[in-house]
């Protein structure tokens, strides 16, 4: 290790301890560390954005592109300029124009993304579970796949039914249909709980690996330092 790495390892070790001090309780040193982290990550995000978007897409085309591309780049340049007025409360109203544009595009992108990226693929995936004859004609486990497919289908339908918002009858007493839907919702809840339980275990595994990474780093650093002195 060179000196920069030594200093780096020391800084990393100290910062790890400072963050772990939160396990004992909230303290000022922990908060200072957090704020430094917010600053550093914002700094990286800003620099990467400038290098990757602002410079190549906003400024480079102005200088090196042909006339039509230059004119086309003027629009986002003006919109971005107007958006920058949002920094000052006094002139913030000028920035409403690019913001309304952005909101319109983003709402459409959200709908488009949800329909083409989730709704259609997920619905198709549920249907495709039953395409056993065409693809797995010689699969010995067709029966098992079908059973699993039926369970997934029931689970998907029940989970969707759980979210039903409107009550199906106006009367205070439950109709049979309402009871049936409620029952389906209950089944859906069980599926939701299983999914969350699985995800939770996964998230814990990821967090545990991060913890192990930090502990390994700290143990190695301490043993390196001790090694220096003992030698």
């Amino acid at each position, binding site marked *: 290790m060179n000196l920069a790495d030594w200093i780096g390892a020391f800084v990393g070790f100290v910062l790890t301890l400072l963050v772990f001090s939160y396990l004992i309780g909230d303290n000022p040193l922990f908060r200072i560390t957090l704020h430094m982290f917010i600053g550093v990550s914002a700094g990286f995000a800003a620099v*990467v954005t400038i290098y990757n978007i602002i410079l190549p897409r906003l400024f480079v085309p102005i200088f090196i592109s042909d006339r039509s591309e230059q004119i086309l780049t003027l629009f986002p340049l003006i919109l971005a300029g107007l958006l920058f007025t949002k920094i000052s409360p006094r002139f913030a109203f000028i920035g409403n124009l690019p913001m309304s544009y952005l909101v319109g595009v983003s709402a459409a992108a959200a709908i488009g993304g949800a329909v083409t990226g989730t709704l259609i693929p997920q619905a198709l995936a549920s249907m495709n579970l039953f395409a056993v004859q065409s693809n797995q004609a010689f699969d010995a486990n067709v029966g098992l796949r079908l059973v699993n497919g039926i369970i997934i289908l029931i689970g998907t339908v029940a989970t969707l039914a759980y979210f039903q918002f409107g009550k199906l009858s106006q009367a205070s007493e439950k109709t049979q249909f309402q009871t049936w839907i409620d029952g389906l919702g209950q089944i859906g809840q069980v599926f939701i709980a299983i999914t969350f339980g*699985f995800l939770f275990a*996964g998230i814990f595994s*990821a967090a545990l*690996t991060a913890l192990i990474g930090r502990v*390994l780093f700290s143990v190695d650093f301490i043993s390196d330092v001790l090694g220096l002195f003992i030698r």
Partner: protein
Amino acid sequence: MEETYCPLCGKPNPIDNKFCDFCLAHLHPQEGGSTDSEALSIPGIEDNQDGLGGHESDSNVPDWLSELQQSNEMENEETLDSESELGQPANAISDWMTGVSGDGEATVGEVSPTAPFLPDQGINESQDIPHWLNDSLIEEEDQDLLEDERSGEVPLDGEGRDVSRGDSSSPEISEDISSGRENAGPLAGLRGVLPAEPGAARVRKPRTYSAKLKVSTSQRAHIDLLNSLLEDEGQPQPLPPRRSISQQHVLRWGIALVLLMAILWPIVITSHEMPFPDYDEGSAEVNRLISQLPENARVLVGFDFEPGLAAELDTAAAPVFDHLLSEGALLTLISTSPSGPILAERFIQSIQSDQKLIYGLEYVNLGYIPGGAVGLLSFIENPQGTIPFTIDGLSAWETEDRNGLPATAGIDQITDYSMVILLVDDPDTARTWIEQLGPTITNPQALMSFVLITSAQLEPVVRPYYESSPQPVNGLVVGLRGGAAYARIIGSDDFPGRSWDAFGMGTFVAALLILVGGLGYYVIPELSRTARDQEKVKR
């Protein structure tokens, strides 16, 4: 570890708190539930309330009846108390009766029949009575009257307020009725005779009433009570001190300590007791696909994870990249998150110690594609147009008028890559990549494969894609487990056994803590609550 939940704000509190630490509401609702006892939940009179607790069982008795019963019982209690305390003879009652009857004028005045039950020591004129009721305002003759009443040496319970609270006319009426005996006339000797015309026999000159406020002893006692109540209200109740170290703190510390010990143990001992996973289908498939790559295959690698997960994904990806680079693959690094390009560079630096990669020649970093799904789709449709430059501003691609970098030579469209590897930690990002690349991968003409190296949390999201047919995802390495399985397949010694051992201990201890701790945390308070309930029933 016991806790109770505030019925008002729902926050957890230590079981022995009377009031909620957060909103100061009563934690244990008043049992018995009568409005009377609720209204009386003032610290000073709680003891007396206990005395009324016996009425709980009479919940089906009509209100008026239970009130009557209550007042009778109270009367009896008080009489007994007064006797035992002051050593007065049992006929003390007759004394005050005579006293009253002896002074005819007093009976016409506002002397309440409850007077004898009022505590003389409870009246502290100088302190307890508001100034507008001070003696100076009361007429002299009324003062005398008060003096007379007080001189009656009424046997009383020490707790003035307690007695006066139970003060109602009903016990007196019943006492009058039960003990009043006719002295003269044909009904002499009989009990409970109503006077024919009370006061009619006493002829006297009508007296002049003062316009000034007259206050009888009972009223004074009521005032006293009200005043003390108001004073209590006005004075801030001392907040139950919030303990600096709560049960939650202890629980957190305990969990942190156990978990840290569990993962430190194998790291320090370095015993390698945990076997690597036997076989993982997804990892084996990735291994097969990489082995089949042609010489100098172009591979697109997506780095889409947060720096916090670097430990997990670096460790899982390390054996895969060992294998990949040994096959001579040339890498193009890309990301859809701003921190991705730096993570990519960092990862390449970390594996450089083993296999020196030359920038531009063997790998190229294209930086990040903004715009999420839209940007990614645009990149998949037209990589050269979407990201024309590398992160450090070099021309990334070979075109007619420009020389590109060797690592990306020959790449015109996305299908020119032999393989796409995505390192990902977020379910939405993973789905975006899969959905956008899916049509290209599942196209029977395509020769490109798509492999995921994911964080453990993504398994239920990405596995269905791997399992489905046709496969939009051809191989899957999930978390540390997948990485360990891959290391075993390629026979790599590089995979950190210490991490795997610590991971094994950590997951085991966590499962144990959640199971045992959760059950204990739930069951112990339940048990103690049941024990408390039983104790109460016994009492």
